[in-house]
Each structure stands twice: as C-alpha cells, then as structure tokens.
C-alpha cells in the first residue's frame, strides 16, 4: 500500500491517519456511550492502525522512479479484496435472514440477532459493501485503462476506499446495536451520512481529475456511466438524508421531510439507488469488461450513447412507482408508471447492445466461464428491467405490491445481473493484476458459475411463485363475498418457497466463497503486476 507513495505522501497520509484517530476520539468523547462512542472507537482503531502502518514505512526506500509510468493498481486490488469480504458477510447474513423466515423460532434471544436488525446488515452489506467496493475498485481500473492515464494522485484512491469501508462498517454495526433512521437502504445515521458525503466528493474529484488527463479525446461510455453513478448517488444521498441531529453528541436525528413528501423523497432515493448505484455503475463495468474479455468491439456506438442518456433521463422520474395506491397523489403515480414503461427501451437497448457485442465470440462464451458470467449478467439485466417496468404498471402492481414478487425481482437484478457482472469483472481483473494468464483454478470458476446460475434461478423462481401466490390469496373472495384466506394462511403457504429461497441463496453464497478462495490463491501466486502501461504524460514528481 505505501510502496508507491513518496515520502511526502507518506507524511500527509500519516497526518490524515492521526486526524482520523482524533476525530474518533472527539466522537467517542462527546457521545461517551452507545453506538456513536463505539463508532468513535472504530475510527480511533482505524486511524491508529493506519498511523502505525504508515509511520513504520517513513524510513523505507522511496518508490521506484518509474512508478508514474505504471497504472496505480494497488487500490483496485484492495477494493477487490474488500468486495469479496463484504460478499461473504452480506450474502452470509442474507442466507441467515432467509433461514429465519423459514425457522422464525430459531431466532436467538439476543436483540442484535432479530430479523429487523439483521436485514439491513444484509442489504447494506451487499449494496454498499459488496456493490460499492466492486464499483470503486473497477472504476479505478476502467478509468485508468480507458483514459490511458494513471490516477491523478496516489493518496486519494486509498482515502476513498478506506473511508468508504469505514462508512459501511459504521452502518452495519450501528444496525446491530439498533441504530437506524428507518429509511430503507439509507438506514445509517447522520454522522455516517456526512462522512460518506466527504468521501464521495473526494471520489468524484479524483475521477474528474484523472479523466482530464486522458489521451483518447472521447470519453468512453463506461466512464459516462461511472460518472453518472458517482454524481447522482451524491445528490440522492444528500437530499434523502437531510436530517436534524437530536444533539451533536447523539446518534439520533429527525428527517426534515415528513409524511408523503418523506415517502416520495425516500423512494426517489430508493429507486435511484437501484438505478445509479446498482445499474449505472454496473453498466459501466459491463461496457468495459465485456468487450475486453470477448475481444469484440461494442456492437453499436450510437446505441450506447442513446441508451446512456435514455437511462439517465428516464430513471430519475420513476421512484413514485413504489407508492402506487398510497397517499401519494394519483398524478405522481401516473408519471412514475409511464416513465417506467419508457425506461424499458433504453434498458433493453443496453442489454441488446451487450449481447450483440458477443456476435463473433460465442465460442468464447461457451468455453470461458468468466465471459459466461457477463453474458448471463446481460440476460438477467434485460429480464429484470422488463420485469421492473411491468411491475410498475399500476394494475399489475396492485397484485405484486407488498408480496415477495418484489423481493424476487430485486434478487433477479442483484444476483443475476449485479453480482454476475461483478464476478465476471473480478475473474478478468485478478489474473491480470497478478501478472498471470488465468486464475489459479479455472475449474473453480466453472463451479462458481453453475452454482451462481442455479442459486439465482432457484431463488428467483421460488419467489415469483411465492409473490404471485400471496397476491392471489390476498385478493381472493369466496362466493359469499368473504375473504377466501386469512393472512395467516398466506404466510403458511410461503413455507416451501422460503425453504427454496434459502437453498438458492446458500448455493449462491457457496459460489462466492469459492470465488474468494480462488482470488486469494491467485493473488498469492502472483507472478508480477499488470503489464499494460499508461500513455499519458506523467506529472513531475
């Protein structure tokens, strides 16, 4: 980590690490006890740990003089490791909560193991921990390669990654201790949110600065997606988390939004978290790794540009489809519904562009599990965007809303699309960054692929059935005009599906564990570094 930092950079890094420890001390001291104090202690621990680590290298030799003629791959490697750690945490807790739905009586009698606290650990662990780290790590790689320029400086990528992971750790430990602002996918409390804003702005600045050094005059479409992801997530995060802390020393706060406005802002955030966190950034990943792995040009340049602007323009309107048949005014629901339908066109255009790109490389899809991950990701992207637009149509939503169909839909997107493209990217990156031709065990990649596909299909099909069954049972009336089923009966009917989804999730988790092992072994068996070099004129030392 410090090997590529100059002495001056190491000194700045040391000062920042000490600053982080001081910040933690202030937090812990002000809060004295409870969640915020624990989070202060975590910041102290990270700050001190980094300070000792960096302090010990102050006398080490200066970095090789040619460091600026290479790409900065250290942060990407670290980001991939964190991606895999969070994958196992997030998916592990996911399987745990899935099992609790089938065996609710197995909940241990300690508060932090209750479903309500574990569930956000799963969602945050996956979206931010797994997805976020994967996005940041791959964005650094893609940004440098498509710009043919080294990252603008050597320190801020580390600050972004470490700071982001501190946010994730604060968030999930907070939930376990019962600290939440009760906004789905934005449960972390105000001080963690503020911290993320600082980190995110730094990320955006780093991205723009690096992009400004690019050699190719055009900005590759993947970078457009990554930039949309960074910029819009900042906007969503700030607006949805506007809140007034109870005290500066307390981890509780009041949101400034109330009533239906709060609901609308929350789902404007919530759906665009899907759009710009879980879609735009990963489309950037797809647009880079798919052509690289398949060795094919992107099928249509024009289509990729139109899809980008279509996706970015339409997505921002559709959040209100989460609030059909609620206190939200009808007109806002109509707009959410119609924009969701129009959104299908650029979404499918992207998926189609990706699949058409594989023309001429189908034999590679057959033989190469890594490329197959990306192909399946594109197919599931197409499937789940179709499903999303379909479920957003008001009368369809009256059947699907509040059922497990929604959960199934989300997982067809997250397992089938997001996680598949991440694994495809990781299996491309890890050997390359280790100076190797292949992963240590290509067989394990094959196993992972089939476990992931089977797990996803079992999970998604089980929850489609579950959701449609629930929706139909809730609206069934007998010939005397009375409800045909009680709610209890609809819960009992879920048992087989909940068992199947637990099995599907466990299969997927097994694949992820295999992936983590394979990546660790490959990184340990590294035979050097990435061999490609930037073309950009390098800044003077």
């Amino acid at each position: 980590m410090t090997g590529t930092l100059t002495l001056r950079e190491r000194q700045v890094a040391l000062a920042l690490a000490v600053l982080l420890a001081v910040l933690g001390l202030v937090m812990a001291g002000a809060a004295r006890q409870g969640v915020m104090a624990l989070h202060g202690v975590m910041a102290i621990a990270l700050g001190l740990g980094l300070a000792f680590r960096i302090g010990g290298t102050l006398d080490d030799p200066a970095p090789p003089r040619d460091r600026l003629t290479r790409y900065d791959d250290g942060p990407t490697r670290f980001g991939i490791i964190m991606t895999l750690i969070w994958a196992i945490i997030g998916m592990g807790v996911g399987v745990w909560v899935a099992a609790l739905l089938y065996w609710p009586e197995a909940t241990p009698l300690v508060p932090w193991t209750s479903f309500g606290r574990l569930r956000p650990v799963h969602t945050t662990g996956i979206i931010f921990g797994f997805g976020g780290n994967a996005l940041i790590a791959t964005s650094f790689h893609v940004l440098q390669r498509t710009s043919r320029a080294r990252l603008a400086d050597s320190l801020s990528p580390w600050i972004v990654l470490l700071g982001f992971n501190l946010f994730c750790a604060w968030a999930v430990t907070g939930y376990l201790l019962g600290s939440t602002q009760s906004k789905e996918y934005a449960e972390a409390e105000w001080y963690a949110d503020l911290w993320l804003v600082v980190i995110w702005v730094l990320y955006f600045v780093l991205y723009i600065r690096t992009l400004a050094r690019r050699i190719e005059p055009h900005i590759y479409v993947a970078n457009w997606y990554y930039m949309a992801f960074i910029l819009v997530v900042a906007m969503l995060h700030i607006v949805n988390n506007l809140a007034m802390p109870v005290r500066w020393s307390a981890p509780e706060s009041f949101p400034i939004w109330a009533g239906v406005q709060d609901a609308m802002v929350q789902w404007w955030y919530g759906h665009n978290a899907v759009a710009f966190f879980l879609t735009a950034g990963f489309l950037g990943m797809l647009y880079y790794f798919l052509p690289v792995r398949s060795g094919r040009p992107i099928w249509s340049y024009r289509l990729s540009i139109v899809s980008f602007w279509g996706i970015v323009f339409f997505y921002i309107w559709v959040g209100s489809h989460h609030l059909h048949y609620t206190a939200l005014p009808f007109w806002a629901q109509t707009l959410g519904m119609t924009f969701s339908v129009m959104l299908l066109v650029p979404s499918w255009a992207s998926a189609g562009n990706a699949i058409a790109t594989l023309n001429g490389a189908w034999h590679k899809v057959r033989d190469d599990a890594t490329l197959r991950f990306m192909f399946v990701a594109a197919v599931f992207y197409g499937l789940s965007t179709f499903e999303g637009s379909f479920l957003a149509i008001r009368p369809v939503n009256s059947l699907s809303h509040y059922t497990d169909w929604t959960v199934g839909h989300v997982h067809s997107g997250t397992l089938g699309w997001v996680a598949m493209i991440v694994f495809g990217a990781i299996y491309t990156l890890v050997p390359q960054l280790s100076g190797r031709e292949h992963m240590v065990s290509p067989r394990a990649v094959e196993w992972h692929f089939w476990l992931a596909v089977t797990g996803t299909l079992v999970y998604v099909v089980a929850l489609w059935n579950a959701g449609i069954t629930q929706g139909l049972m809730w609206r069934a009336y007998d010939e005397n005009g009375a409800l045909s089923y009680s709610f209890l009966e609809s819960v009992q009917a879920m048992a087989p599906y909940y068992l199947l989804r637990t099995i599907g999730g466990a299969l997927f988790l097994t694949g992820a564990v295999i992936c983590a092992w394979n990546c660790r072994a490959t990184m340990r068996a590294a035979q050097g570094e990435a061999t490609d070099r930037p073309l950009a004129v390098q800044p003077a030392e």
Partner: protein
Amino acid sequence: MPETTDPKQLPGADPHTGNRLIDPVSGYDTTGHDWGGITELNTAFPKIVIWALVLSFGYSVIAWILLPAWPYGGDYTRGLLKRDQQVQAAEGFRDLEAGRQDWMTRFASEDPAELQADAALMQTALPAARRLFDDNCAACHGAGGTGGPGFPVLADETWLWSSAPETLVEILRYGINSDHPDTFYGEMPAFDWMERSERAALSTFVVALQDGSADFDSDAGALFTENCASCHGDDGAGGLEVGAPALTDAAVIYGQDHATVMETLRHGRAGVMPSWEGRLSDAEITLLALYVAQLSEAAQP
C-alpha cells in the same frame, strides 16, 4: 481504402486519428475510437429501438391524456377518465360489501340466538368468521383459539363472565381493561404490601388448590379467606361475574405454578383485551362472538 485522401476526412473516420477499421466478423467499420484496446462499431442506429421508443412514448401520452398526470401551478391535469383513487377505493369497498349484503347485514340487526339457530346462515357465515378470527384475534389467542401465556384459551369450557354470545359481543365491543368508557374490568391487585413469607405461603396454597390438596384451616387458608375469597370465592371456585378465575380447575391464563403465582401476587395482573368497536363493524362483532361461542362448544365433551 483509398490512401490518397486525408483519412481524417473520410466518412466514419475518427476526426482526431483518422482510424477506420473494418471489423472482420460483422463487416462494419469502427468509429475509430480506441480506449486501451476497446473499439466500437459504427453500426447504424437500429430502427426497432426508434419504434420501441415511439411505442412506449405513445403509451405514455395516452395514459397522460386519460389519467391524472401533469402538475401545473397548484393543480394537475385530471385526465379524461376523471379517475380519483379515493373514490375508486370507496367504490371498491362498496362493491365488496354488496357481495356480502344478503347474509352479513342480518348479523348487525338480529338476535344472536336466532342467528345461531339458522343452520344455513351459519354454514355461510362460519368460514368467513374463521378468517376474521385468524386476521384479528389469532395473533394473541392463537389459531383456533388455543391461547397462550397471558392470553386465555377460547376453545374450552372455562369462561370469565360468560360464553353467552350476548356477553361475548359486549366483551368484543368494549374490551377488558381497555380505553373504552364501557370496558369490562378484571384486575388482580398487587399484594406487594404483604410479607414475602406470607405471599410464599399463599402461593403454595394456591398451587395446592388446583389438585384439591389445599388445607383451608391452615394459616395460608386464613390468608386466602381474608384477602382472596371476596373475588375468587370462599372455596376458590372463582367469581366469574367479576372476572375472577377459578383456581380449582385446570384452566390457567398466566400459570398456576409457584413462580408464576408469586409473580402474580407481587405485581398483580390486568391483562388487556382491546375494544373492537369502530375497528370491526357490528355485524362482524356479532359474527365473531358466535364463532368464539362455537369454538368453546365444540371443545366441550
């Protein structure tokens, strides 16, 4: 490719580099961009995408014309269909009510005994009543009225007050220890002013009452007569009309083991049954009362 012209001027060539490669698989030329090895084909924009955009936009415009859609000033476009989701919801409820009209309304007006006697009516109503019970009562009283710690069993012959449908209607409507002004009261006071040793003796006595081995002539028996008999009866057989359970039978709400009785004596008990007036209609309350009475009857030998 003619090399005589400036390649940067060629159609489809990159204006910066002049690159213009032909992809051997598709036969298309590329845009000339090159991002570290990634290139793009200069494929014509697919017509089908344009048609799909037109189609989805057409759908949206039709929806905007028919439904409430665009806000302006302090108002919004109402749409040709003049849909209003509050009106639609009310209509939906009315239609569903209408489907139950021919039998449900009788439960709002007629005497429970008469209703109970109408076998055909009860056959129609009881399945609906079971769902009503599962949705509203089972969370505490258990599916089938099997009860649980703190929540009385309904499917047995033991009743506080009465299992007569008229009484059940009142209990459902007003609740027990609820916030309704006409609520039933059933409170076991706390005997925390008593010496612990006395409470322990009483507790042993109450446990013994259940198997008939209690000695009324003992000191504990005297304590019982002095403090408990006014509600629970001289022999502990209960004062059903005031909501004091019998202590001599097998039926328990909280438990009749030593530890539970000690807890009850020290802190008292005042379990709450909520008032359902306003949450359930009169007809639904009567229907539930008859269902619960039937649960109790069915459980009796």
